[in-house]
């Protein structure tokens, strides 16, 4: 038990440390790709979530007005930003393919089905907010 308690304490400390992450450097200008003054919102099911460089991606299957399935790709902030928004794996219990989501994002300026994730609403009503702050975190 004592050992478990120590483990828990250490892990909690570790999580706290993770929250104070350094600024994230983007490999491209956010405003060169996304309109930071507008937003777009779509609902659908999670196709995949990928932890990759230089940006992680959430891909969502969205039905268009004719009922045809379209893929939307949403760029994610770093893992620290997801944790700050309360979306660590422990909090969310794991977002998995097939989950119903509503995504609000900064729309791509080239009109493609893509955006920069700002808010994610999951099936049970919980909403996670992400902000693009001055340091791009």
């Amino acid at each position, binding site marked *: 038990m004592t050992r478990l308690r120590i483990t828990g304490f250490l892990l909690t400390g570790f999580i706290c440390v993770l929250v104070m992450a350094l600024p994230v450097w983007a490999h491209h200008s956010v405003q060169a790709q996304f309109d930071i003054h507008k937003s777009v919102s779509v609902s659908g099911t999670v196709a995949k979530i990928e932890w990759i460089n230089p940006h992680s991606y959430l891909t969502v299957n969205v039905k268009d007005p004719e009922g045809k399935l379209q893929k939307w790709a949403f760029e994610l902030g770093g*893992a620290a930003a997801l944790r700050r928004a309360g979306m660590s794996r422990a909090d969310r219990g794991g977002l998995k393919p097939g989950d119903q989501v509503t995504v609000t994002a900064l729309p791509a300026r080239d009109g493609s089905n893509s955006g920069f994730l700002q808010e994610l609403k999951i099936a049970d009503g919980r909403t996670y907010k992400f902000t693009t*702050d001055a340091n791009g975190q």
Partner: protein
Amino acid sequence: MPLSRYCRIMAVAAALCFLPAAVLAQEFSPIKRNNNAPPKPSGPTPRIADGHPDLTGVWNGLGDNLLGVPNQIANNGLSIESESVTRDLHSGALIATFPRNTTRPLNNEQSERAATLLRRVGSNKPIYKPEYWEMVKNLDHNSNEEDPSNNCMPAGIPRAGIPSYIGQFPNYFIFIYPGQGGLIATQTMYRMIPADGRKHTPLQDLDGTYTGEGIAHWEGDTLVVDTWGFTSNTWFDQLGGYFHSENMHVTERFHRDGNTLTWTATVEDPDVLLEPWTTTPRVALLNPRPGAMLPESQPCSERDLSHIVTKEHH
């Protein structure tokens, strides 16, 4: 212990196990840093049996250089010392700067543009032959399309900077440079560098590669890595459009002092440069955690550059 608490701990432990290791390393920082001044050395310098310093270790300090390379701004010869003051490490001059390194709610346009300018004010710049000045300027201006390493290609040498891991063996060294998604998006590179007294392969017999043919030797306590045989598809510094020819010759110097490793690279390329250029020294910190291991880096898949609609860039 109540079962719910136990479950919570186990859930957190499981989450940590499953989170990509590189993400943890990239974002592990026990100190909220508000400057990026090069770290100061402390502790003894370990030595191997023949008396040379032992460079073996995970040289990612507090995780900084898995985000990119250590002290990315210092890489361009700059050290952010406070919210509004930056030091040019080459000249020593202080530069009043827009408060880039701040928590104040500036909007992204201001912040990004200020950072882009700041990265270019360092005074230590390579001098190209006049006929290439326009080309270098255009490569930098159009770096969204032109940067050869920003779409998950290798950064090359010396752009990759200090390796995040050095393994020192009697007759060779292993250098590992994890892929990154910071200022540029690059894939993992490794180098196996002999230190057995061999000579270079004649340049004309080498196919140009991203890390070239590196051969190491000691000059006193400094490890010197001499490399040629490069592809021309890299830039030799983080920013600026600094292209080079296949005849580039790079001399890197690694000097360990306690828990720090100081690195410089000298670039000789008479095809395009008027004179050799040496980077401003960069300093990496040994990872202070006992038993530190180099984590797996995330795979790189670039999907943004084809959607970019303006010339703004890093």
